[in-house]
């Protein structure tokens, strides 16, 4: 897509939790300045992928290069230095509940810089203005609606002007209006601040609207990739099922089980589930 080298380069990534393999040899490239979406059915480890990029989890195998540094190899100090250049928006905002909106946005600035309060104030108000919540600066997180707290969290995530923004399910559980707000915000912030954005989501319409490139994950592998247009037109069964939201396809409707008739007439185990 671009001739520049990818800012995040994942090769042969494997990760398992207990006996369950979540990733099995995943290769992903994320390019500078683009909005890249990682999509897939629930439970495919999309959030896990963000945690792996952020160094919160350690992969079983493979490399995750972020801006030429391999995340799993970094020392404590290097990892924390790298994280200062990453922003992440959590599913529920994850605002610090013992501080008000203003202090939440100021938190990373106060932790990492020695700026004086006046400068911090102008920075915080700038970020809050960008998400349209400058008037809500004195509210506590418990007084915010879900959409508002996500916007505050977004302001906080970009407070340090990161190079990469990661969004974990930014659209779930939002009413159409605030969803539209967030969609627009992600795109404008990305272009205005020159960020690179990674969106993890399963909301096709919203994601497809702003993503430059989409990876489809299923069963621990990348099953399809391309722009939303390419995926729409692709003849991959996975892509078709996911993009069109078909109930049955390569991703089965049923949780793996025996034949229904066999289960139904299994009289040996019939007492199980019957109240004594």
């Amino acid at each position, binding site marked *: 897509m671009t001739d520049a080298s990818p800012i995040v380069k994942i090769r042969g990534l494997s990760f398992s939790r207990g006996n369950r393999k979540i990733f099995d040899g995943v290769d992903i490239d994320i390019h500078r300045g683009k909005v890249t979406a990682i999509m897939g059915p629930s439970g495919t480890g999309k959030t896990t992928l963000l945690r792996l990029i952020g160094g*919160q989890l350690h992969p079983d195998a493979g490399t995750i290069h972020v801006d030429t540094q391999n995340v799993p190899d970094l020392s404590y100090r290097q990892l924390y230095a790298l994280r200062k250049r990453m922003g*992440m928006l959590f599913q*529920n905002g994850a605002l610090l*509940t013992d501080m008000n909106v203003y202090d939440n946005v100021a938190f990373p600035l106060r932790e990492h810089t020695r700026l004086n309060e006046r400068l911090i104030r102008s920075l915080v108000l700038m970020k809050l203005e960008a998400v349209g919540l400058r008037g809500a600066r004195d509210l506590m997180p418990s007084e915010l609606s879900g959409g508002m707290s996500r916007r505050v969290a977004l302001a*906080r995530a970009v407070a340090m002007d990161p190079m990469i923004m990661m969004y974990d399910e930014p659209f779930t559980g939002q009413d159409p209006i605030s969803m539209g707000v967030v969609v627009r915000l992600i795109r404008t912030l990305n272009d205005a601040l020159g960020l690179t954005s990674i969106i993890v989501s399963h909301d096709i319409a919203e994601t497809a609207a702003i993503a430059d490139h989409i990876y489809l994950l299923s069963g621990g592998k990348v099953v399809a990739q391309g722009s939303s247009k390419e995926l729409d037109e692709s003849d991959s069964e996975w892509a078709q099922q996911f993009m069109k939201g078909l109930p049955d396809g390569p991703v089965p409707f049923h949780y793996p089980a025996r034949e229904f008739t066999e289960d139904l007439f299994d009289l040996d185990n019939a007492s199980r589930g019957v109240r004594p």
Partner: protein
Amino acid sequence: MEYLQSLGHKGLSFFQRLGRGHILLANIVMGLHTLLPRLRLVLIQVFSVGVLSLIIILVSGLFVGMVLGLQGYNTLVDFGAEESLGVVVALSLVRELGPVVSALLFAGRAGSALTAEIGLMKATEQLSAMEMMAVDPVRRVLAPRFVAGVISMPLLAAIFSAVGVLGGYFVGVGLLGVDEGAYWSQMQSSVDLYDDIYNGVIKSIVFGIVVTWIAVFEGQDAIPTSEGVSRATTRTVVHSSLAVLGLDFVLTALMFGD
């Protein structure tokens, strides 16, 4: 066979948790120097850990002292030794009840609150979010709470003992008519600064370390669901109470068993 397997599994996970707990303690201690320029964080936690436990400590200290005064009087008066009431009250408070009871109350009041708070922060991804903001939650969240607990515990135990001695005084001298001079002077001649008070303070510092450590660890190690947090809170109270009572025996044997 299955039973053996589950036993082995439980044993392994026990040791795993034990190891994790000690690694956490080591991380907290190694990160303490980063706390030095930011003592405000500790101060805020001393408020929520120490000051908010004051009421329960004051009230229970007073009543424990009053009960000691009553019981001690009833026992001693049979031997005509009610002048020694001050000694009985002061020694039992300073050596045992002060550190132990206040540590148990502390575990119930502050320990459970710490676990619940940290557990909820984990469940709502606040700890994760901090980590992704390049702020180490061990240093920013856990260490100040730990230090605050270690500071508060001996102060609370001292307040407990002092209030208890006064409670014994009210009952013994005020209600039962023990001689005031005898109450204080017998106490002063029998309670030793080093043997009793100093050792009592050491006990309460050890209890403070153990209780806050368990509380902080259980919070950080909680399964991030509401059920997991509530179970972690219960575990904090149970484990830290047991640890306090067990350690009390060990410490008493070390200090007073000459």
